[in-house]
């Protein structure tokens, strides 16, 4: 027996071994099969269907039968007079939201400093609550409160001597309303992660800092904040990765003809074009463009974070 046969023998032995292992796991494969099939049908099949972005899709011909058109629909989108507006509107909303990113962290740091356990629990309970309201409900409340004739906000504005404004019908006010109602709804919920991270800060470290004469502010800036930095960076990377994906539901529900100048974002345009006007291929192309920008952003920010802080998603 020469060297080659030994190797082949070893390899076939190895394959046999693996095969036996795979076969011995058959019950586990059956357990996971429903999820695999589900993800295949609802996530991977649409990925296959994304090729209609490069085709002139006709429902009668099916995905495979439609003719290729290359990058026509992408070009069409870039030449679209709305292109700049859509991108800028989407970016403005998500950058504005990104600017409020530190707020839940500040809230978490403050909650962490509360000594009275009962008060602490109450604050947490109250601040988490709006998270459980549906987008429709939150948008309805915003719409009711912003109404020019009888909205709560306008009543308050008038009480302090201001002019009544139709808040939701002003394009310039759309982004602040969108972002701050979002802060109201999720500042508490988003702080949970940081509160969890803060509970992991070692009490010895805090005690040592105290003995060295640090006051509360100094403990926060020199002990607490550095300890939760990994969590902060990871969350930041994740939010940068969705810079071009603004939550469709909320924008759509707050949108009206008069604030369209600021509220027409990629997601709502994809919906209008694809499902209302049935321009499937054009809509799919914009959607794909959006996804690619998001993934690129995620990879860039991830790379930067890895360089700068040695913390990264992957």
């Amino acid at each position, binding site marked *: 027996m020469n060297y080659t046969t030994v190797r082949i023998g070893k390899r076939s032995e190895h394959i046999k071994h693996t095969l036996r292992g795979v076969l011995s796991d058959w019950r586990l494969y059956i357990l*996971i099969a*429903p999820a695999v099939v*589900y993800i295949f049908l609802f*996530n991977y099949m649409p990925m296959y269907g994304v090729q209609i972005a490069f085709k002139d899709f006709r429902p009668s011909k099916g995905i495979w039968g439609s003719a290729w058109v290359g990058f026509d629909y992408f070009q069409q989108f870039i030449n679209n007079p709305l292109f700049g507006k859509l991108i800028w509107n989407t970016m403005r909303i998500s950058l504005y939201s990104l600017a409020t990113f530190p707020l839940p962290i500040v809230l978490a740091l403050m909650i962490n400093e509360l000594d009275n356990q009962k008060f602490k629990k109450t604050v947490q309970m109250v601040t988490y609550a709006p998270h459980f309201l549906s987008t429709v409900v939150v948008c309805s409340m915003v719409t009711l*409160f912003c109404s020019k004739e009888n909205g709560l906000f306008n*009543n308050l504005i008038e009480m302090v001597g201001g002019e009544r404004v139709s808040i939701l019908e002003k394009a310039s006010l759309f982004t602040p309303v969108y972002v701050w109602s979002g802060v109201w709804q999720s500042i508490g919920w988003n702080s949970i992660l940081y509160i969890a991270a803060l509970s992991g800060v070692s009490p010895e470290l805090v005690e040592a800092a105290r003995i060295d004469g640090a006051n509360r502010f100094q403990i926060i800036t020199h002990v607490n904040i550095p300890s939760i930095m990994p969590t902060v960076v990871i969350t930041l990377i994740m939010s940068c990765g969705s810079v071009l994906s603004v939550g469709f539901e909320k924008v759509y529900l707050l949108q009206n003809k008069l604030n369209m100048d600021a509220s027409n974002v990629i997601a709502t345009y994809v*919906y209008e074009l694809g499902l209302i006007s049935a321009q499937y291929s054009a809509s799919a192309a914009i959607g794909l463009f959006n996804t690619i920008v998001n993934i690129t952003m995620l990879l860039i920010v991830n790379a930067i974070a890895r360089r700068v802080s040695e913390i990264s998603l992957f």
Partner: protein
Amino acid sequence: MTAKAVKVSVNRNKKIRQTKVDYFFDTLNVIIMVIIMFIILYPLYFTIIASFSDPYAVVNGQVYFWPINPTLEPYQNVLKESRIWIGYKNNLINVPLGTLWNLILTMPAAYVLSKKKLHGRALLATYFLIPMYFGGGLVPTYLQIKSMHLVNKSYTLIMLGGLSIYNMIVSRVFFQTSIPEDIYESATIDGATDFRQFFQIALPLAKPIIAVMALFYAVGRWNDYFTAMIYITDQNYQPLQIVLRGILLLNQTALSNLDTNNLGNDDIEYMLTLARQVYMAEGMKYSLIFISSAPLLIAYPFVQKYFVKGIMIGSLKG
């Protein structure tokens, strides 16, 4: 020294070292917290008192801190709307069945992926990770679901949104960290198959995470608007959120269209009834918001800790 004694001495230390800066800091902190709580609670509180107030008072801006001329009329009007009953009924069917379907898909998959001995585990994990970052987008997904004849069916809202990969990963972390490997090892030695190990050992021990996941999924389903908006047009299958939107956001203009400036004397009677209807419609909106969120708001204080637990497990290994 006992543990208790240590604790006492630490507390005393803290008190001794309480400087002026610290005292100022604590007071300011509590004040800011109270303000934040007020800002968060007031809109909710206002909605509730407005829903019990006379719609005239609400529309004319007299309601601020307590209900004015309390009435249940808005609620009676809400209950007269058949659309709301249909929405509620659909939610009461779809949410429990859909959540069950979620658990059937999520739990076994999470368990299997938690098995280190599984052959091809890395491959399967990647298979589930890719859709978290990349997807086909709205139109290709719509076309796929349409081609599976899942549009506008009584079971559409149950079948769709069946598996959240994020939730599955959270459950997997639970299986990995909370159930010791030794249990499975001894079960294997005793001749228990993977099926038995899952159904008779892992599932009973996973009750906490099952509860958390059921809550996550159920709240998501109760509040979901998007899925029904895209895939349901049949009135009979519309869930609560669609009905809500129809009533709350689509007829806002009624009140502003009410023109009271140039009226003839004959019209006044007619206008008054019309005005009454419009005011009632306004009052109804607040009660509708309350009625649709009530199940969640009532359950919330009791289940809040489970949600927080879910987030914590998820943060262990995201």
